[in-house]
C-alpha cells in the first residue's frame, strides 16, 4: 500500500461540511472539482455512492471498476467507473492506503442475518441512503447499488475468504477524488455498532471540496 498525500490546504476549500456520526449527506460535486473525505477521529467507515448528476440512472459500478484496474482494493489511481463504462471520479490522493468496495452497506435486514433477528431496529446505512434518496427525489431504492466503504479494510484471502479487519485508518486520514463529471455524492456516515468497522464508536467525518 502506498500513501499519497495531497498538496491542498483546507483553508482554500470552497466548501466544508462535517457529517455527524450515523447521519446521511447528499451533495453535488462539479466536473473538475476535488472532493476530500476526512476521517476526523479515526476508524470511521464512510459508506459512499456516486451518480452522474445529469443522469442519475448512471451510477458507480464496483465490478467494472475492480475489473478494469485488475485489483480488488481502491486507492490512489483508481478510476471509479459507472455502469455505462464512463469514469465518474478518480482517486488522486490517499493517506489511508486501501478502501473497500466489496462489503456493501449495513441495513436493518442484513443486520438480522449477520448478528441476530432482534438487531433489525438498529440504525443503518441503508436507512440513511433511503431517507436521503427519497427526500432528494431523483434517487430511489433501485438506484442503491453496491457502495464504497472508505476507510474500511476488507481483505480477500487467496483461498477466497473474506475477512473484516480493523485498524488501517486513523484520525486525520483522508482520501481525495477528482470528479470526471458532475456527480451526486450520497454518503452514510456508518452507524454500525455490531462490528469493529467503526472501532465500536461511530464518529463524525468531514467533506471538503476544492475548485
Amino acid at each position, binding site marked *: 500500500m502506498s500513501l499519497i498525500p495531497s498538496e491542498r490546504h483546507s483553508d482554500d476549500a470552497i466548501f466544508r461540511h462535517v457529517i455527524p456520526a450515523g447521519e446521511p449527506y447528499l451533495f453535488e460535486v462539479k466536473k473538475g472539482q476535488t472532493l476530500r473525505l476526512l476521517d476526523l477521529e479515526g476508524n470511521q467507515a464512510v459508506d459512499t455512492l456516486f451518480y452522474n448528476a445529469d443522469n442519475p440512472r448512471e451510477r458507480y459500478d464496483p465490478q467494472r471498476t475492480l*475489473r478494469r484496474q485488475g485489483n480488488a482494493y481502491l486507492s490512489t489511481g483508481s478510476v471509479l467507473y459507472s455502469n455505462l463504462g464512463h469514469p465518474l471520479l478518480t482517486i488522486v490522493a490517499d493517506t489511508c492506503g486501501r478502501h473497500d468496495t466489496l462489503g*456493501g452497506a449495513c441495513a436493518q435486514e*442484513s443486520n438480522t442475518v449477520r448478528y441476530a433477528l432482534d438487531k433489525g431496529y438498529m440504525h443503518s446505512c441503508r436507512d440513511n441512503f433511503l431517507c436521503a434518496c427519497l427526500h432528494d427525489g431523483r434517487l430511489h431504492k*433501485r438506484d442503491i447499488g453496491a457502495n464504497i466503504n472508505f476507510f474500511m479494510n476488507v481483505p480477500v484471502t487467496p483461498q*477466497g475468504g473474506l475477512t473484516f479487519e480493523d485498524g488501517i485508518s486513523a484520525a486525520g486520514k483522508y482520501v481525495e477524488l477528482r470528479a470526471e463529471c458532475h456527480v451526486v455524492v450520497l454518503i452514510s456516515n456508518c452507524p454500525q455498532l455490531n462490528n469493529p468497522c467503526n472501532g465500536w464508536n461511530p464518529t463524525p467525518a468531514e467533506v471538503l471540496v476544492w475548485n
Partner: protein
Amino acid sequence: MNSHFHSTPSLREERVPGGGHTSFILRRGQILRMTDIEGEANVSMMMLNPHEKSERLNLPDTLKGQHTARLSRGHCFYSDMGRVLAGIITDSCGWHDPFGGVLNAEETLEKYGAGRYQELRNGFYRNGVDNLLVEMGKWDLGLEDLLMVVNFFSKVSVAEDGRFQFWSQHSKAGDMVELFAPMDVLIILTALPHPQNPQSDYAPRPVQLSWFQADDPHAATEALFTRDENRRAFVNTQLFAL
C-alpha cells in the same frame, strides 16, 4: 455427480447456446441445474424477487454474511431484504465468481474486435450488459436494476496485494451446479465468456438448464444451514411467505 435432492424426471430442459440469454421464474421448492456442456462455460446471472422486483440479489451482503469471496456448495444468495433467493445445494465446480461482472458493447469490441450481426448473423459478438438488459426489459426492469452479477463456472482469486487471477479451464465438460429456490426467484442469465478470460477470440460456450421439483424442500433447506447467518436468513424468508 448426482444430486441428492431430486429423483423425478426434470420438469423442463433447455439448451442455452453460447451467447444466448434467457429469464424465468424458478418457483419456490424447485431446483435449477446448470451443466457445462463443452467445458469452460460461464453463466452471468441476476436474481430478483418477482413479486417485488426492487428486492434483488445483494452480492456484498451475500459475501460478508458468509465471510466468503467465492461461491460454492452450502452458500446462499441473499437479497437486500435479508432473505435467501437461492442456495447452492450441489456443485462439482467448487468456485463461482462474484467479482468479474459483465462487459458492455464497447468493452466487447475492444476485447474481441468487430463482430456485427450484419456480417455474422446470429454468430455476432454479443455482450453481457446488452443481453441482460434485453431480458430485464421483458420484465419491465431498467438500467438501474443491473447490479453486480454472479459468474457461474468461473474462478477468479485475489492475491495478497489485491491483484486478480483468472483460472483458465476451471470448469470441465459435465461440471454442474444446482440452485434451490426457497422462494420464487426471477432469474436472468446469459452464457458469455467471463470478462477476465484472457482468450481473445469470441467463443461463448453453451449451457444446459434443467428444472426439477425438490423431493423434500426441508432437506434442501437444511443442506444450506451451513452457518447461523443462513439460518436467520431462512427465518426472514419464511416470514415473507406467511
